[in-house]
């Protein structure tokens, strides 16, 4: 059998990669290109004809004040959530790698929120905020306290709190892997050279864990930026649309208000913003990475 003919190569390729190629194209490539086309039409979601409207959807996307306030809100939310997730995750990872008894139990325990979908988690926390915290507030003040979820700033705070709680365990696992990858001999060498434990942490361990930071920050940014499930179940964008994140706005624009063209254009803008932030972050973090 000849191994460098086009017929042999394409047969081999299709035999092994054919199913993957078809599904990948049908689910990602075709919709992506078709989505680009949709941004130039004003489609109502029902009719067969999709009138061509040029850049009108992008113009209305740029003029859509609700969209930009949702994007600004998402950036604010992501900034808080990403920093807090990583700080909490790093501290947890530090504690569960310090050699205390039962550290595997704690690692497994902190990971639990990641096992459960955002919808269910959101409703669990909705109960905690609306009932349990209110009951505690009532007892402390003696009067009736409003739920945090019913105040405009409070809803954002709740969303950030739940996200930190949800993702910290997952990021912790990555930081744990980072801690374990730094060999003890390097830390010991630093201590013998006169470093204190905290200096060894700052000057030896953390620089060698830069890859973990890069990974965790990238994952938390990309996840926070398109947050939807928890947003839907915990706040539904309420009160008064004050907690509508960008992904929810895009969903509502397209599927609730049936403005598919503008919704798709806004989704694309969201993707570009997200990609730029992601690329910049990875670029700057990679620059600072060192090897042992």
């Amino acid at each position, binding site marked *: 059998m000849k191994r460098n003919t086009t017929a042999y*190569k394409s047969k081999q390729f299709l035999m092994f990669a054919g*199913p993957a190629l078809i599904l990948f194209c049908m*689910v990602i490539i075709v919709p*992506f290109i078709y989505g680009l086309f949709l941004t130039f039409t004003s489609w109502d979601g029902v009719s067969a004809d999709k009138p061509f409207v040029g850049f009108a959807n992008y113009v209305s996307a740029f003029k859509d004040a609700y969209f930009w306030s949702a994007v600004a809100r998402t950036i604010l939310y992501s900034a808080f959530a990403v920093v807090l997730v990583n700080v909490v995750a790093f501290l947890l990872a530090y504690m569960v790698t*310090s050699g205390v*008894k039962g550290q595997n139990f704690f690692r497994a325990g902190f990971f639990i929120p990641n096992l459960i979908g955002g*919808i269910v988690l959101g409703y669990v926390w909705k109960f905690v905020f609306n009932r349990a915290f209110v009951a505690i507030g009532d007892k402390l003040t003696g009067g009736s306290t409003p739920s945090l979820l019913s105040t405009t700033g409070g809803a954002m705070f709740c969303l950030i709190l739940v996200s930190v709680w949800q993702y910290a365990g997952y990021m912790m696992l990555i930081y744990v892997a980072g801690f374990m990858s730094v060999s003890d001999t390097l830390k010991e060498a630093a201590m013998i050279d006169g470093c204190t434990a905290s200096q060894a942490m700052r000057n030896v361990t953390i620089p060698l864990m830069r890859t973990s930071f890069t990974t965790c920050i990238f994952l938390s940014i990309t996840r926070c930026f398109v947050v939807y499930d928890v947003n839907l179940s915990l706040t539904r964008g309420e009160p008064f649309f004050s907690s509508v994140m960008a992904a929810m706005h895009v969903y509502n624009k397209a599927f609730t208000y049936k403005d598919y063209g503008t919704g798709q254009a806004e989704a694309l803008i*969201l993707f570009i913003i997200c990609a730029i932030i992601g690329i910049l972050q990875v670029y700057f973090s990679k620059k600072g990475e060192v090897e042992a």
Partner: protein
Amino acid sequence: MTKNEKAAIARKRKHAIMIALLIIVFILFIIPFLLVIINVFKDQADITANPLALIGAHGFTTKNFPEAMKKMDFFNVFKNSLIITTCSTILTIIVSAMASFVIVRNGKWKACAILFALMIASMVIPFQVLMVPLVSVYGGLFGILNSRITLILMHVGFSVSMATFMFHGAIHSNIPLELEEAALIDGCNRWQTFWKIVFPLLKPTIATVAIIDAMAFWNDYLLPSLVLTDKAIYTIPIATQAFYGTYSTDIGLVMAALLLAMLPILILYLFLQKYIVAGVTAGAVKG
């Protein structure tokens, strides 16, 4: 007291503080779950009166469970989730392992290089960009939404890039070419070589991919909510959302529904936590 003894005492004290801190943080972490568990055994009036009490004034009750199960059609949605998750995971593994095999061993072929580059690039596309066209093409044009098979194939399509990337790394660094050459000499063709030699050696990566994808499929909400419209084929997250929409005022029922939605994966975690933690770590660090 010698210096060593002092250091030992200081270390012990540090450990004690660390354990105390960990226990406090851990309790804070699981309080939401504990609250659900204590309230699921109360009736609605007792939850409203005092959600913090361990046992309600009207005593212990389990009546929330059967009612929530019936209203949520729990066994049916559980079965749907199980079918969809299992089929999607198995298909993803088979399809991506095969693709990564031909890509790694023939990286110079143009088709392989292009496909792999496209897959890597596609990993940054958020679902929000694809959801409108997906619904428009498969709902409007072909009308094949609202079927389990469509959802399974879409799940596979979305996860195939990441899985191929992981299998690519595993084959590239862990499967020696000599093994395949030996198989060739013994008379295996490429298809047999893959299934008899390569695939069995990929077990650790298969486990990692299975864990990551199965968890993602089981918990996915947005894609199934767009694909599945018929109540009979709802998955657990969709059914939970629908349930909350209808019965949100009956908080006792909601507690039972939430606990039911969490229970299957928590029980699984009890037995497989070592593998799940290892799999998730491997996936995140390599991915």
